[in-house]
């Protein structure tokens, strides 16, 4: 298989884990999380720090998922009862704090230089087989996450989070406290983000604070909006659309070689911005249709 395609598939899987978590939080529960990248960052650093200090990768992945989840706890305690727009701001602030800590606590994170030499997941194999092994493990996690989401959607828990999304006051009037449900959703989504971050760290092999900017969060938002909010199929479709626009703009130079290298980053940004605009104009419910269409 083409190495380039494998690489894209791996990155798509890493994005998909993030997107599934955000879809659970926003699409199903209505929780506006603008700080998703913070938990991705926590997971990446957790696994990177542990594995570069000799902890086996299997354990560092597990730790990353758990620490990603635990990192969401204080955010939830402080802000889950806030109005949704305040929660959005609090979560954004949280992810920026995470990035600041990663930048300034050099003893732990190696500061702006970042952490290099993060071990691969299967250190025994090399080259193409290494990439294929990585793809396999990412795929396994994605399939498990999708199955988990399907189980949630069909459960009484899933019913209640959708009720919260539709009308929080009515949920309270029935004697059910939305806060507990939102907290669980925040924790599970952050666990997926933590795991995703760990996979990313082991795949890229090098992490630094500037990789965990809020723009990552917004890419995930764009993916779920373009695919169809509140739908698992929409989340999968959205990640594919996002990758097509991100990667597709790479090939722009093949047909338009006059574009200078330095302009490419801006063009990629412009491309997904354009995609989002086209979707909101022509297909606001996303490719697969969102939860309002049934």
């Amino acid at each position, binding site marked *: 298989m083409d190495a380039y395609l494998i690489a894209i598939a791996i990155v798509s899987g890493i994005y998909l884990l993030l997107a599934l978590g955000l879809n659970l939080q926003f699409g199903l529960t209505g929780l506006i999380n603008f700080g998703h990248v913070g938990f991705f960052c926590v997971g990446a650093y957790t696994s990177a720090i542990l594995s570069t200090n000799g902890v086996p990768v299997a354990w560092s992945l597990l730790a990353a998922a758990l620490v990603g989840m635990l990192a969401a706890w204080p955010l939830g305690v402080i802000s889950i009862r806030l109005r949704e727009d305040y929660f959005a701001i609090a979560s954004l602030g949280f992810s920026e704090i995470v990035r600041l800590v990663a930048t300034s606590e050099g003893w732990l994170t190696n500061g702006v230089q970042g952490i290099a030499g993060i071990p691969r997941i299967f250190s025994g194999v090399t080259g193409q087989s290494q990439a294929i092994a990585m793809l396999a493990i990412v795929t396994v996690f994605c399939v498990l996450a999708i199955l988990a989401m399907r189980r949630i959607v069909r459960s*009484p828990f899933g019913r209640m989070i959708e*009720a919260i999304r539709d009308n929080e006051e009515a949920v309270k009037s029935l*004697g059910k406290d939305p806060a507990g449900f939102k907290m669980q959703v925040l924790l599970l989504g952050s666990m997926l983000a933590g795991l995703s971050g760990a996979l990313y760290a082991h795949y890229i092999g090098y992490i630094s604070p500037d990789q965990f900017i809020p723009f990552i969060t917004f890419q995930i938002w764009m993916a779920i909006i373009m695919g169809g909010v509140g739908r698992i199929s929409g989340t999968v479709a959205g990640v594919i659309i996002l990758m097509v626009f991100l990667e597709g703009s790479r090939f722009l130079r093949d047909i338009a070689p006059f574009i200078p290298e330095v302009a490419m980053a801006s063009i990629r940004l412009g491309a997904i911005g354009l995609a989002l605009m086209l979707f909101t104009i022509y297909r606001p419910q996303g490719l697969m249709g969102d939860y309002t269409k*049934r």
Partner: protein
Amino acid sequence: MTLEIKEMSKAYGGLTVVDRVSITMEDADIIGVIGPNGAGKSTLFSLVTGFLDGNGGDVVLDGKPLGNASAVERAQAGMVRTFQVPREFAHMTVRENLMAAAPGQGGENLITTFFRPASVARQEKEIAGKVEETIRFLKLGVVADTPAGRLSGGQKKLLELGRALMTGAKLIMLDEPFAGVNPVLIEELSQKIRELNARGIGFLIIEHDLGALSKLVSKLYVMDRGKLIASGEPAAVLSDAAVREAYIGGGAN
């Protein structure tokens, strides 16, 4: 079931919209609250059910003062309200709306969802049975699988009553249950409320349809500009001069 609403008050800045209102219900009764637009009826409901923080007053349910219990705790204590503007779960079907209202669901957390699916499924079956009963009782069968957002205003009112019933509430507070409901159905709905009341559920009802309401309730409380201006048997209250004045004078603005 007994309810004592004691001196409830609410002010917005200098404007007192609910002014020391007291209402007593003994033994699962059906009681009406009337008054012209803006009298403070819905605000009173929000105060009693904990959806608004008031300026003084208390609610005593079955002898227990609720103090500053939250809206969720009050509903759990058995006091469930509906909303003047229906708050259906718009993107869920009528059946799902009702399922969601059932109390004490073990499946409502992620641990049981993943690790105890069998017991969750068992409870779901039980709840589904009760939901079918409620759907039959309220004649919502034809729309059972319709997203609640697509229901008519009257059907949404019925759905909210259904959800309140599913919670197993002992006191149900209905804010204009007859608004948007056709006259034939109003008669039927009144009959249902009587049936439920006979089973021991108390009702506190805000309603502008005085004809239908006075046939249903044993007692009327009248509010005007935040204050209680009259209370008593429907016939007596409706012929009260101050009440007529409030409706003709206050209702016209």
